[in-house]
């Protein structure tokens, strides 16, 4: 979207959404799709309201959000730290870089069995895998940003006799900021996904476990309520990060 939507267009857009909801209502009430799979919108809303008011779903949501944020912060710290180490040294890039490129496409969830074997079925295990999985985009973004420092700036750093640490802190990391922020956005998406998978496998309290149990018990309205909440978490975290990105990078577009 290059320009803001006019009020008329927003109304039209909301009308399409309303039409989709009406289609859902019709499909569930007319019996086009079995109610076992597709609850009515009212039932979903009721489950959502009940769960949030009684506190169970609210607690699960808080647990999942907490796990996601904790893993994300860990991933950010580890990713920027390791990325700065690897990115600031040509030798490290030559020797370690290819290994990092090899590990990057590895699905984060594939590390989970190994983590279970080492840490057991615990919340700490899930957190470790979330941090590990979400670290890669940040790490590679940091390396990419540090490598992309303009040669002129390197000359400036040499003229000012900056040490490697100072160079990374004062020139390298600010220069890598757009790549790091982009990596952090991707890391948030990965954090949410791995948190949910971890809750499903390790039976940690959270929305992942809640929707799995709801599906096993054929309680479709609770399942849909959980999916709606997960979508809301994804939507809100994404929107907040987009806002933060615009603020953090404002200095680049004077």
């Amino acid at each position, binding site marked *: *979207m290059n320009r803001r*939507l006019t009020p008329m*267009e*927003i109304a*039209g*857009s*909301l*009308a*399409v*959404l309303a039409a*989709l909801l009406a289609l859902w209502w019709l499909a569930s009430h007319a019996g086009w799709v079995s109610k*076992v*799979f597709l609850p009515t919108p009212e039932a979903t809303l009721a489950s959502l309201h009940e769960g949030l008011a009684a506190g169970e779903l609210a607690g699960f949501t808080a647990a999942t959000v907490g796990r996601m944020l904790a893993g994300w912060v860990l991933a950010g710290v580890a990713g920027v730290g390791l990325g700065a180490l690897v990115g600031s040294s040509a030798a490290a890039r*030559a*020797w*370690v*870089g*290819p*290994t990092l490129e*090899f*590990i990057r*496409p*590895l*699905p*984060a*969830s*594939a*590390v*989970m*069995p*190994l983590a*279970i*074997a*080492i840490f057991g079925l615990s919340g700490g295990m899930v957190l470790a895998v979330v941090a590990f999985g979400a670290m890669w985009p940040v790490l590679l973004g940091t390396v990419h940003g540090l490598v992309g420092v303009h040669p002129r700036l390197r000359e400036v750093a040499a003229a000012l006799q900056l040490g490697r640490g100072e160079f990374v802190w004062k020139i390298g990391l600010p220069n890598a900021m757009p790549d790091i922020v982009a990596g952090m956005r991707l890391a948030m*998406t990965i954090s*949410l*996904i791995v948190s*949910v*998978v971890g809750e*499903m*496998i390790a039976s940690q309290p959270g*929305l*992942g476990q809640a*929707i*799995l149990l*709801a*599906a*096993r018990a*054929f309680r*479709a309205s609770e*399942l*849909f309520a*959980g*999916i709606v909440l*997960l*979508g809301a978490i*994804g*939507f809100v975290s*994404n929107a907040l990060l987009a806002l933060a990105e615009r603020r953090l990078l404002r200095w680049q577009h004077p």
Partner: protein
Amino acid sequence: MIRWLRPFVFPALLLAALEIWARTVGAGSDAVAPPSAALRAFAAALVDGSLLAATAFTLGSAALGLLVGGGLGVAMGTLLGLSPRASRLGFVSVELLRPVPSVALIPLAMLVFGFGLRMEISVVAFACLWPMAMLTQAAAQQVEPRLLEVARALQMNAWQRFAWIVGPAMVPRLFVALRLGVAIALVVAVTVEIAANPNGMGYAMMIAQQSLDPALMLAWLLWIGVVGFAINAAATWVQQRVARRMGEGRP
């Protein structure tokens, strides 16, 4: 010669350290095994056919899911990209559905399809749908305006414009979208198997862990890494070849 070997030194050191550690301090551990034992477990799985069967299942469902999700995504993205009105009308719905994490649909897919191929395909398809749609939409919007002027000058109708101008101009970017789709499809397929579906590489690895066979588990982890790396490298190669053939980068 030395330069060529350099990428392998670091992983070799890691594996050697693991080998020594697993044979001394961690001997008899249920969590880690020496890489040499993992290699033996890998060979055994290769010989008895379980390796190829599980790999084929995972890759097959990832490919079918990508086909379904990518096909729908490209169709949707083309529509949203070519018609500003459609993209404005669909804006709120798309922005609300897109952030739903694909793994949230695993329980629903389980409920609808039970375990097996269809359930995995449906989750992979949902995961591939949105990124492919968004990249296709961008591809359709970024067609060189001068080409559209040419189409207008030649008085082409909408269908001719799409078939002769817009469609071909989108192809290089579509292959970029495909590369991303391949990566997502593989990750999601393995994730579905680890979380729920009792088939494929992810499940085989889960079972190896649960039966306290760290050598086999490590073998699967390394194999999943190799397969993922090879497929991503192949997708990147295809994308770059297409980009060169289609003249991207030339003025």
